[in-house]
């Protein structure tokens, strides 16, 4: 029983950075911009967050630094693809490579450094409930904020006027332009917001989850987040589900190995990818549904006038 509670707890924690980055990428993809630079943005934000936490000892400032670094790098990406109309795929890949090298470069002095210990967070009263307490109510606040964020994005995209404008720009930028919406600025805002969320995800990895800095810390999670948004057919709650599913199966396969189950670990290592793809593909198997949800202008440049 206790082991299951710990497994649930580990699932929520390991799904959180994927969910944060996935939700951020969903926002800028809904506006029609595909940002393949997520991995690099997360890395730069991870070192920025770690440096901030190391210097100030504050988690909040670390997340702010991560968001700022992620937002800035995303803004540079946005400037290139939205105004200069560079190819989104190539520019995104360049940002990814740049982020890897740059974070390694500025992070050299932080390798092997230790953050000040932060007191473990728990929800008062609820944390004392047997089973549910250790499973659900002893997490870092960012874990709960991520769930709140997913709900907020659902409301924003499907219930607010600004969200409608954002989606319209992702579907038909020419029409939105003709109606007088400022396509480029809205896209830039979405890209910066997406980068900031990727940044928070990166800071979560280096400050709360690992918590340490080494070169290449993010280890492919940016790419997984990118894949999640596609497999989740650009629906926020499915991104959240996919992230927890991926985290959960990862932790489950480690737990099985630790318990001495005789299955090849290479096979188990494949399971998180397989399970996430199968489940998300099943719930999104209707082609019409995918067509409706996929932003029609995704990855295409927009030329006003």
């Amino acid at each position, binding site marked *: 029983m206790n082991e299951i509670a710990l497994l649930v707890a580990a699932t929520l924690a390991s799904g959180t950075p994927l969910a944060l980055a996935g939700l951020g990428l969903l926002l800028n993809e809904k506006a029609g911009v595909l940002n393949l630079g997520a991995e690099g943005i997360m890395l730069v934000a991870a070192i920025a967050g770690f440096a901030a936490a190391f210097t100030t000892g504050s988690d909040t400032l670390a997340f702010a630094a991560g968001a700022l670094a992620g937002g800035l790098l995303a803004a540079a990406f946005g400037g290139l693809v939205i105004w*200069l109309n560079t190819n989104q795929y190539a520019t995104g890949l360049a940002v990814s490579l740049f982020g890897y090298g740059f974070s390694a470069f500025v992070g050299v002095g932080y*390798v*092997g450094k230790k953050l000040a210990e932060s007191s473990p967070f728990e929800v008062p009263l609820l944390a004392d409930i047997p089973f549910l307490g250790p499973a659900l109510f002893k997490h870092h606040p960012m874990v709960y904020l991520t769930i709140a964020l997913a709900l907020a994005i659902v409301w924003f995209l499907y219930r607010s006027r600004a969200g409608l404008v954002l989606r319209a720009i992702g579907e038909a930028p020419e029409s939105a332009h003709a109606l007088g919406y400022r396509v480029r600025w809205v896209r830039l805002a979405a890209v910066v917001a997406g980068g900031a969320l990727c940044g928070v995800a990166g800071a979560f990895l280096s400050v709360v989850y690992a918590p340490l800095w*080494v070169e290449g810390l993010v280890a492919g999670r940016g790419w997984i987040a990118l894949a999640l948004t596609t497999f989740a057919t650009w629906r926020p709650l499915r991104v959240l589900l996919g992230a927890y599913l991926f985290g959960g199966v990862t932790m489950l396969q*480690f737990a099985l190995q630790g*318990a001495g189950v005789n299955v090849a670990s290479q096979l188990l290592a494949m399971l998180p990818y397989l399970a996430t793809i199968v489940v998300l593909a099943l719930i999104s198997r209707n082609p019409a549904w995918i067509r409706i949800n996929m932003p029609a202008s995704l990855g295409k440049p927009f030329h006003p006038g």
Partner: protein
Amino acid sequence: MTDLSKRRLLHWAGITTLAATAALVGCGKKEEPKPTAAAPAASAAAPKPAPLKVAFVYVGPVGDAGWTFAHDQGRKALEAEYGDRIATTFVEKVPEGADAERVIRDLAAQGNKIIFATSFGFMEPMLKVAAEFPDVKFEHATGYKTAPNMRIYDAKFYEDAYLAGVLAGKMTKSNTLGFVASFPIPEVLRNINAYTLGAQSVNPKVKTRVVWVNTWFDPPKESDAAQSLINGGADVLLQNTDSTAVLQTAEKNGKYAFGWDSDMSAVAPKAHLASCVVDWSPYYKKAVKDVMDGSWKTERTVWGVKEGQNSLAKIADFVPEDAKKKVDEVKDGMKAGSFEVFTGPLLDNTGKERLAKGVQADQSWKDKVDFYVKGVEGKIPSGN
């Protein structure tokens, strides 16, 4: 400006940005310049002979605080030892594969006289290049293939793992140890087995649980694996992955763990029992000396605690005296050559005898370890 030329300008701006980015990323290669390093042709007139050029090929970044860091410490020790008689170069983050061959060939063509490749996957590329440069000496870490001008060297990490096991056996309360393992190769299996045997030498009730992460380096994943071992009841962890993540996860959970490859005591003062460290400098000094005095010949060198290549460093103050004493005893035995980790009777975890009573394992036995010793739970993952 016409519309066309404006667009072309923007086009070029984009390409320039990309190229600049690529150039920034691509500059992984670093030279440690010796300002006086003269070209070989100029050496006739120079009063001093040109320095011997020594090159290193690393698989990771020198900042990994683990495997590559340890090799680079060895390179620095070489420079300290030989001063301006040598000039060292290194190339870091070289992928194991086609690029490695190009890098090694470049280094040989640049006039390096001895080249160290510090990862298993550099074996085939190095073998190929060695055939093309007969007057350059090639040194490969952890491999098994040699050539007239290529030899191999390795360290006895399992001696460290055994010493760590002795401490783990004394410190565990749940009698369950955990091991975060990278890939099921003999090197790693020796470490898991030695860790378990060391613990059993002081605490026969100990069992070891293993989690394979199928990577050498992925800190969050290593941390996940450590967490699941702790959730399953393990309270002293060892790993042979390259980051400090396992140690830090143990610290967070109030459990114990060890540093691997380099001194990691600073990152987890409460969890850190000791660090299994490797010091490559004794071998690097010997290899360069062999080239200088012309005594270099093809051979295989496997050094351990006895030669000062491996050691268990920075044992924590809170470790009880009797445990420290036991570690010192075993260490002395290793130094004197009287103690061998793999000595019969040795059973695997299915009960089959792998070494008869009194028999000490030889090198070829150690090269082929493909089983868990008694006390390790589960089955080794296999490809089929």
